């Protein structure tokens, strides 16, 4: 069943994991070894230390092994199914889908959320995965597109979940720990719940070996040799989603295991599908156990709980960057394929945009709500003073994020690239949250300077990680995604404390114009317009960059100069927006895409149309956020995410996405 060559390696890995397991047990308890053995063999527990060993330390170990195995296997199934080494429960959106479904169920149907957690999680995971498949297309699953789409779905689902939590604040305290993913146990309940549900899926996965071998010869080849392709793909995806859903329902969001384990398995020499499945499962279990050991140790010295998920991110993200740096070059000769659309922007479109912009601005300034109901009137001086900085700030943020997206999509040569997906807003979030937590103050007082510093840090890391490869598109995209995932995991850990600060952080994460002052709105607008000017100036560079390395070099463009410069411009625009509004997701993805569909195929036209769409979308989202649940105010960024998600689903229905 396994390749003969890898047997010694597997034995070695097994020995290491045995050592880790022993260390895990030793870290969790002060008992003597002889007592541990006696308890395992069935001795009656006496003191609390005995019960703690039998009902907290041992089930935690079992849970780490079970969930690690499930996640490692799910990752391997996803990767073999899509032939994409970056596919995983985390990157394909499945984990966040399961999470959102459970959050919604907790709010609307609490008994369903506790009694049928696995089915709720499975439904959410399946929905998210279908969305990713639909956005990237079946063919897109093998490349970067799937991961970009997965991260976009993560952002969308995360925004919806955060909004729900925000509106019900203290009732969701417990979800924060779960969002960060923790293996802590207080009995065998969850293990005995999980085991009978997990085992059939584990066994079934190994029955897929032959089909997966056939699949490697390509879809047509597999079908020619008698593999019923559609049912096989559905069953494989269903198993991977089921494994993900069970892990999420049992312990919460633990990322990276499903991504790293299969890659390590191949690195260790697993070649055949079944060997890869088996080794991924083992490595997943071992990895989660090892990272959880770090969490157990950290818990002994820190003031607040360190969730297991924190440590998997800490270890997993660098591992991801290292893995992807080993396999570079592939796909970098790709050129930027524009989504379908008319060849130029029709006059009607320009006119429509102008009318929409004016109408949206007027509506945002004049239509409001009070106790009596809807009011449409020219605002008083004071109301106007409260409204216009928000409207201008929203418009400027939309313009800036759209431009950042236009630059990045051409730089990365992928229509699904965007600043939020590539970690450029995560740096600012991380810096603000970190300052607030270390300083014991409030995130609202940390300031724009800190946020910009955080974004610069991410930019610096991206430039440094990409320097050896001339800042090639795939490297930048992967490094960005890895950084975004890492920083996001840290923020989740900061949120896990579940204090009043957690709600302040969640509110900020939504990306709101609430705190934008008149002066800041003007600065942001000026910066966004300068950004537009620069994009128009650099349009030839951007055209050449998106045409592929050969074309660009043939036309005399210095890639080593142009790429870092364009990246810096994109990052700077995103950083300014994030500093003053918080992270604004989806606009940078959606606006450039919509612009192409309206005929903005050349850089200048795309930038102008995308900028207009971005601004209108943000002004509209901000207004809707102020009105929808009056007097509760929703962050504009969250509303924009939901509208953006809706737009993608609309495109899916019309099947015109890529």
């Amino acid at each position, binding site marked *: 069943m396994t390749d003969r060559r890898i047997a010694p390696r597997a034995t070695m890995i097994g020995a290491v994991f045995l050592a880790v397991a022993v260390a895990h047990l030793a870290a969790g308890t002060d008992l003597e070894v002889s007592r541990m053995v006696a308890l395992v063999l069935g001795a009656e527990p006496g003191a*609390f*230390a005995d*019960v*703690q060993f*039998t*009902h*907290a330390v041992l089930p935690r170990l079992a849970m780490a092994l079970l969930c690690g195995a499930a996640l490692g296997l799910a990752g391997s199934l996803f990767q073999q199914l899509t032939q994409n080494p970056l596919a995983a429960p985390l990157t394909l959106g499945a984990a966040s889908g399961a999470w959102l479904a459970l959050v919604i169920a907790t709010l609307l149907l609490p008994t369903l959320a*506790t009694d049928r957690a696995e089915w709720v999680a499975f439904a959410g995971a399946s929905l998210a995965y279908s969305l990713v498949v639909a956005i990237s297309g079946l063919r897109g699953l093998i490349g970067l597109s799937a991961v970009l789409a997965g991260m976009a779905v993560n952002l969308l689902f995360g925004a919806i979940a955060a909004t729900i939590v*925000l*509106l*019900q*604040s*203290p*009732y969701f*305290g*417990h979800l924060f*720990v779960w969002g960060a993913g*923790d293996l*802590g*146990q*207080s*009995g*065998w*309940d*969850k293990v005995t719940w999980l085991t009978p549900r997990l085992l059939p899926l584990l066994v079934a996965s190994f029955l897929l070996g032959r089909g997966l071998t056939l699949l490697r010869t390509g879809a047509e080849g597999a079908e020619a040799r008698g593999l019923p392709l559609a049912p096989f793909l559905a069953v494989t995806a269903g198993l991977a989603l089921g494994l993900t859903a069970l892990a999420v329902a049992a312990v919460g969001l633990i990322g990276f295991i499903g991504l790293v384990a299969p890659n390590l398995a191949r690195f260790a020499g697993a070649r055949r599908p079944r060997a890869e499945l088996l080794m991924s499962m083992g490595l997943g279990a071992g990895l989660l156990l090892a990272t959880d050991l770090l969490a157990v140790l950290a*818990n002994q010295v820190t*003031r*607040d*709980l360190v969730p297991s998920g924190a440590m998997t991110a800490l270890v997993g993200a660098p591992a991801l960057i290292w893995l992807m740096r080993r396999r570079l070059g592939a796909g970098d000769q790709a050129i930027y394929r524009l989504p379908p659309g008319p060849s130029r922007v029709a006059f009607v479109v320009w006119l429509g945009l102008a009318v929409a912009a004016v109408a949206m601005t007027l509506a945002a300034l004049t239509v*409001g709500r*009070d*106790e009596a109901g809807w009011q449409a009137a020219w605002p008083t001086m*004071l*109301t106007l*003073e*409260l*409204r216009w900085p928000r409207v201008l700030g929203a418009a400027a943020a939309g313009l800036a994020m759209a431009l950042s997206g236009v630059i990045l999509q051409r730089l990365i040569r992928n229509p699904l690239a965007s600043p939020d997906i590539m970690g450029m807003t995560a740096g600012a979030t991380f810096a603000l949250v970190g300052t607030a937590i270390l*300083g*014991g*103050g409030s995130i*609202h*007082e940390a*300031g724009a300077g800190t946020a910009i510093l955080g974004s610069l840090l991410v930019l610096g890391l991206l430039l440094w990680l990409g320097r050896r490869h001339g800042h090639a598109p795939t490297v930048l995209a992967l490094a960005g995604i890895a950084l975004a995932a890492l920083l996001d995991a840290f923020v989740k850990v900061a949120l*896990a404390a*579940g*204090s*009043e*600060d957690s*709600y*302040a952080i969640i*509110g900020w994460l939504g990306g709101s114009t*609430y*705190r934008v*002052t008149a002066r800041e709105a003007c600065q942001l607008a000026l910066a966004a317009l300068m950004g537009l000017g620069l994009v128009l100036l650099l349009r030839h560079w951007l055209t050449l960059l998106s045409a592929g390395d050969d074309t660009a070099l043939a036309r005399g463009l210095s890639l080593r100069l142009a790429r870092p410069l364009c990246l810096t411009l994109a990052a700077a625009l995103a950083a300014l927006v994030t500093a003053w509004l918080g992270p604004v997701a989806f606009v940078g993805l959606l606006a450039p895409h919509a612009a192409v569909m309206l005929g903005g195929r050349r850089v200048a036209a795309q930038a102008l149309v995308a900028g207009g769409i971005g601004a209108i979308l943000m002004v509209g989202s901000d207004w809707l956020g*102020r009105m929808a649940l*009056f*007097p*509760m*105010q929703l*962050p504009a960024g969250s509303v924009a995410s939901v509208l953006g998600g809706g737009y993608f689903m609309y495109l899916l229905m019309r099947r015109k996405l890529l």
Partner: protein
Amino acid sequence: MRHIIVLVFLFWGGLVHAGALTVEDRRGAQRFDSSPERIAVLDWALAQQVLDLDVVPVAMPEIALYRDWVAEPAIPPEVIDIGRRGAPDLERLAALGPDVILVSDVAPADVARLERIAPVLVFDTFDASHDNIAAAQRIYLMLARLFDREALALARLDAMAREIEHLADDLRHRRFRQVAIIRLNDAATIWVYGENSFAVAALERLGLENALPQPPSRWGVAQRPLDTLAEVTDGALLAIRPHGPGAEVFDSPVWRFLPAVAQDRFAEMPPLWSYGGILTLGRHARAISAALISLAP
């Protein structure tokens, strides 16, 4: 003694600014020509302070959630909800025409904007670097001065101090000298109150010891794994309701075998807002003492 000094200080202040009111907030002295009538409060801690002065604000945030989580003092139905604690609806606030806006935890730019609506008082309620309880008392007295209710405030503080003293006297002869106060989170994690929290301050004034000391922090609370509670070897263990999904823990073996639980040293307390105004100290003391008496009649 401290109250008398405060009183003297207040009288002295009153003489210096005859006719006008001066109140200290984070930024220094703020002058008011008369006591404000229409008060808007933008967070729950300050809302509790105001209500504890028998002053009814015109507006405050998230009233429905306040009723579940803070509960006391009750909010009269005429108070208008202005939305989220972190982001109240400023237009609605402006439309209500308040005489003063009471806030905490805001950036200077936000204060400037609020000042366009009405005079603003900014208080530092909870902070890792100061004593939250002393700060709450200072704020309470400042607000009392603003609303011209100093006598009431001092009487309430005095009554609270006397009540706590009385409760402490009663507890002195009872079984428990060490107490840990927690909130349940989920099946495997809990929150433990430590330095700089109302819960632990109340313990100390009752002459009791914290059985699970935690370093001071902004909110005075730390999130810990469940088995931390095994360190409560012979003290009482008290959990503040509502438990929410934390109630799952009651069925777990680790919980049942915790020394405090196995030996019937565990009791529950009614909903208490641990991040409130100064009188919340008395509410904690009362709840702690009632819980301890239920454990050791």
